[in-house]
């Protein structure tokens, strides 16, 4: 359906924090329309990878590209192409969800009407009566939805998700997964760090397992069996492989 153009790419990426090597020669690529789930234990380097794509970290070695551009050289162009959703979406607590959406959009130079803002929130499944309530009264899932609305207002080509479903109840996580899938089906490239194997299998096209800053195993999510995935994941975590 899509000319599977590579939108996210890491080539021989190395990231050091002072003397500590967090990413150690990572090769990764995510084409348009693909959801890539990044698995791996704590400290495997998932967040570091995402932060490097965001330009929060600088590569110590190798390169990262977003739609062919390097975040280091063209930060503005790159940031215009991507949307970011952390585990805890940070919002202004004393503003409503709607106001947060409008505020972030205004700052990012994105023009949206009030109606459009309502529509965007609705599309993420946020109840209408919550739109004008202060965010301080929101649950984690509701904040996630506002974050998603901000990301979709941006009409980004690439989405970076860092443990987006952790702390969400199963039905909320499922709902979230469906929306991500829908976004990818419209041509977005999605990179998602997660600990949720079930969720990964459900939403992703490709699954990668990271360990000590490297990609140690990759699967086609549609063909790998859940049992096999779980087995491999645990084996890597226990250092058996």
């Amino acid at each position, binding site marked *: 359906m899509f000319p599977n153009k590579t939108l996210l790419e890491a080539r021989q990426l190395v990231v050091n924090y002072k003397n500590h090597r967090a990413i150690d020669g990572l090769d990764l690529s995510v084409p348009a329309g693909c959801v890539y789930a990044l698995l791996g234990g704590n400290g495997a380097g998932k967040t570091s990878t995402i932060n490097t794509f*965001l*330009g*929060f970290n600088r590569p110590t070695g190798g390169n990262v590209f977003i739609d062919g551009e390097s975040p280091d050289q063209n*930060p*503005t162009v790159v*940031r*215009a192409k*991507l*949307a*970011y959703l*952390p585990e*805890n*979406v*940070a*919002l*202004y607590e*004393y*503003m409503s969800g709607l106001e947060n959406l409008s505020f*972030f959009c205004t*700052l*990012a130079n994105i023009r949206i009407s009030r109606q459009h803002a309502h529509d965007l929130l609705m599309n993420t499944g946020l109840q209408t009566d919550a739109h004008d309530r202060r965010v301080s009264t929101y649950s984690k899932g509701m904040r996630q939805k506002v*974050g998603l609305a*901000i990301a979709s207002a*941006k009409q980004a080509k690439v989405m*970076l998700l860092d443990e987006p479903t952790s702390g969400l109840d199963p039905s909320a996580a499922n709902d979230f997964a469906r929306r991500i899938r829908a976004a990818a089906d419209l041509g977005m490239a999605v990179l998602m760090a997660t600990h949720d194997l079930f969720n990964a299998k459900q939403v992703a096209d490709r699954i990668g397992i990271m360990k000590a800053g490297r990609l140690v195993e990759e699967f086609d999510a549609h063909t790998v069996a859940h049992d096999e995935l779980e087995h491999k994941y645990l084996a890597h975590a226990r250092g058996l492989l």
Partner: protein
Amino acid sequence: MLRDGRLLVLAFSVFAVLIGFFLASVAEHQQMQLEKQTVGATAKEQWDTQGVKNPHAAAHFGIYVFKPDSPLASVEPGLRQYTGQTLWLEPHKRNGARFSPAADQGLAGRFGQASAGFVLYALLPLLVIALAFNAVTQERELGTLRMLHSLGVSATRLLLGKFIGLLLAFMVVLLPAMAVAIIILYQNFDLAGDDILRLSALSGTFFMYYAVFAALAMSTSIHFKSSRLALFTLVAFWTSSVLIAPRLGAAAAEMMVPIPSATAFWAGIKKDIQQGLDNDGDHQAREALFKNQMLKQYGVAQVEDLPVGYAALKRSFNDSYSERVHALHFDRLSDAFERQSRFIHIASLLGPSIAMRSVSMTLSGMDLAHQRHFEDAAEKYRHYFIGLTDDWDRERSHGTERGALGHDSDWGGVKAFSYTPPSVSFALHHAPADLLVLLAWLVAALIWLLFSAKRLKP
């Protein structure tokens, strides 16, 4: 930030504190003005109705004059406490406006009194800091900074927006108090055009001053990881600018430019009068020379034959010499005070507060320059009326006979002291160094802010 109930509470407390201090100052100012007017009127009336007496004896009755304060003095009383308000004008001797050269109050004391001005220059910067210290650190702590960053929001734009928003919020806090203050001023004083100009200039410089603190607070907020550290650093800066710098500057200035004690000051004048300046010869020699001159001028052999009173002639001669000596010493003293206040500015490196305080005293007409302007005018007036009494004494007597008399018609003919305070341009002319220091701080703070914005890390 506006939603933050904080702002409302702050606005209200600032309003209350400022208006409180201001009302107290206005009341004090009016009370003083009234006292000055009544005392002044009574004194002049007593002078006018001295009855028949020797003109020089009348001169010794003396005249009180008062420095009329600008309405702005109720915002910034400046040196009022230290210089006093009345000047006693009498023959032979120039008085300071209770401006004892060995002011018991050190220079430092001049900086720490509670007034509306103190709130404006010392407390409000704290408010600016309170509003700004976590402008960036809080966003970093909450994670919204990362959100903004990932959205491609330009750091410079974000920070300039925050900076302007901060200044606006601050104005929202300040405006009600300012509006009420201006209404109070209008109701209580006849504001002249010059007062309005001074008030505008004062508001402008205060705005610059707050902008310095706002920009510094924002930049600090960028550089520190935690709000607490940023706050700590900013309060330290505030302390150094408002509390430490003036004292340090004063100590340095007092060391660099010593001011004579009152005793030494008057003794110096007495000695110069007695021994004479340069090669003028001592008191006796000068008098002898003068006597010969007069005898020659009037073509008589002895003072008894002079057609005018010799006592008055000699007095005028001695007084004019004494005036010369006084002028020399008073100018020297004023210059020393001026040099001292210049030295204080060295400490402006620690913060802009010294310069701000100095500008506000100058614009309110309550600084050394305005005091000197007034005292010089009063001294001129002293020459005028003492000169008149000497004229009457000389013309109405002759030789060594001393029967000259004056009447109420004479005393009443002495014009009252009328003093027009200098205009705002005089004030600005005396504040370029302060304004320059403020401007330098503002430019430096803004450059640092822009520079910090470029280095902003989420």
